[in-house]
């Protein structure tokens, strides 16, 4: 038996681990990321001569059920046609039975990487509002993401915002293809190869730092759009935490989105987006009751030019009053 050098061993490991795209129109280039759901590879679409990101489930053995779920995940994402949601180009099965789907390859940086080099609060809030809008669109189509976090949000080369990894998304009752899951009126769209925490009422899904309390308790039946609102609040908190003075209104929005009781949160991502819009326009936000002084201060801040004009006019009048005295 031939001795295998370290290089040979690593090569054989990739031969075994990397997907075999030989029966597809894609050429494998390299691994991009490995997550709980699957592994994302960079590949070239030989027909269209473009790069794509291909997601393949991380499992050595694939059942028919898992295959169907992966296909469904791809179909659901493909249905969410929105500039803020990464588009799916193709879905298929590898020769070893694993399902893959090809998505747009997004060049850019993740939201956490973006925030590390961009400390402008207004820029961050604008990006965050775009995330809210994409999530609101998904909610309108009956899909909740369930794993929103800075690592799942990409800022493209042209500043566009894309929400990725809909791998643990759920379709809410009354939408989608009409199927109903075992957990009340929502059901999962894809499998996961590892990590779960069972609880008395269900099982936890998501990422701890960005997970709503009901999600952390595994109350799958109780999950609705407001679970994503909580996660969005956690993303907002992430974007504000290194800001010296984010402002009381911004903090109030963050607190409302991250309220422990879902009844106390924004009822939808679009409501949250609207409040962020008002904050950016220096309008009163629904999450915060201003004092008269704060209201005046905000008004002055918003109408700075007008205030300066009036002040200049008044100063001139005063000047004329004093200089015209005999």
């Amino acid at each position: 038996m031939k001795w295998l050098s370290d290089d040979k061993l690593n090569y054989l490991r990739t031969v075994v681990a990397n997907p075999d795209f030989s029966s597809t129109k894609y050429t494998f280039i390299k691994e991009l990321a490995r997550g709980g759901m699957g592994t994302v590879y960079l590949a070239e679409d030989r027909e269209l001569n473009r790069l794509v990101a291909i997601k393949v489930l991380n499992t050595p053995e694939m059942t028919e059920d898992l295959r169907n779920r992966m296909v469904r995940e791809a179909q659901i994402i493909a249905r969410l046609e929105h500039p803020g949601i990464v588009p799916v180009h193709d879905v298929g099965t590898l020769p070893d039975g694993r399902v893959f789907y090809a998505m747009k390859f997004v060049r850019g940086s993740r939201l956490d990487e973006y925030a590390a080099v961009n400390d402008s609060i207004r820029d961050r809030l604008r990006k965050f509002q775009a995330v809210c809008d994409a999530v609101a669109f998904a909610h309108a189509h009956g899909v909740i993401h369930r794993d929103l976090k800075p690592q799942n949000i990409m800022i493209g080369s042209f500043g566009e915002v894309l929400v990725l990894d809909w791998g643990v998304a759920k379709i809410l009752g009354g939408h989608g293809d009409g199927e109903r899951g075992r957990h009340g009126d929502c059901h999962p769209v894809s499998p996961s190869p590892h990590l779960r925490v069972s609880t008395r009422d269900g099982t936890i899904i998501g990422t701890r730092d960005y997970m709503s309390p009901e999600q952390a308790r595994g109350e799958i039946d109780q999950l609705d759009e407001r679970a994503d609102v909580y996660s969005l609040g956690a993303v907002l908190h992430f974007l504000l935490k290194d800001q010296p003075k984010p402002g009381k209104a911004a903090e109030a929005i963050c607190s409302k989105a991250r309220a422990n009781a879902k009844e106390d949160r924004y009822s939808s991502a679009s409501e949250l987006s609207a409040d962020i819009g008002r904050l950016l326009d220096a309008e009163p936000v629904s999450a915060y009751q201003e004092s008269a002084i704060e209201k005046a201060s905000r008004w002055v801040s918003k109408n700075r030019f007008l205030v300066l004009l009036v002040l200049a006019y008044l100063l001139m009048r005063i000047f004329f009053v004093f200089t015209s005295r005999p």
Partner: protein
Amino acid sequence: MINPEKSCKSCPIMDPDTDIGGPLHKFPATNHSAIAGARSDDQLTRRRAFDTILTSYWKPAYKYIRLKWQANNEDAKDLTQGFFANAFEKNHFAAYDASKASFQTFLRTCLDGFVANERKAGRRLKRGGDMEQYQLDFATAENELVASDLSPEDYFHREWVRWMFTIAVEALRQRCEETGRTIHFQLFERYDLRDDKDVSYASLAKEFGLEPATVNNYLAAVRRDFRGVVLEKLREITATDEEFRTETRSLLGVEVK
């Protein structure tokens, strides 16, 4: 080695109905696990299971004894033979508890305990005598020894991975020969096991008198088979589905250095 069960704040956590290992979508039962076979009451089953474990671990064990315990090659041979003979005679592997550690860690711990006891007792196991002797190619193992800056535990793991893949390549060769696909293995050997970096699909096509597309298809097929063989080998030497998944991720998901 990756431990996917470790708490990981950035890892998504799933519900059972989306989990491969969940109650409704379990992996198929580990029918061919040698670890399970080691617990069998049937002597023949136990013997087969033991042979599988011996085949999978003797070489990393020998190298580990040489490196960690600084044993000379003769002592290392005797200790390796002694360890496996003792383990089989006393059925040590049946005591493995998958909930506590991986089988690999269990075996290494047993090995450390065995060598430490032998050293403490000042014994030197003599080959021959009453002890069962296995036909193991220690000369090759000795030639493969190279200096390493890895910890003994990492070294053991790396050598085990290397040995697993070596066995898998041999099993693939046998399988291809048995199924009349010798050319598939030859292509695999010439391209994937090559030392010559100038080999290409086109040059192989010319060499074997095939179309480049056929070379591509044959290689894709034989690589699929190789993947299957590696997973089969892993199945054989893991006790539970969870351990199988962990070892698969460890074997295929971490850079071996």
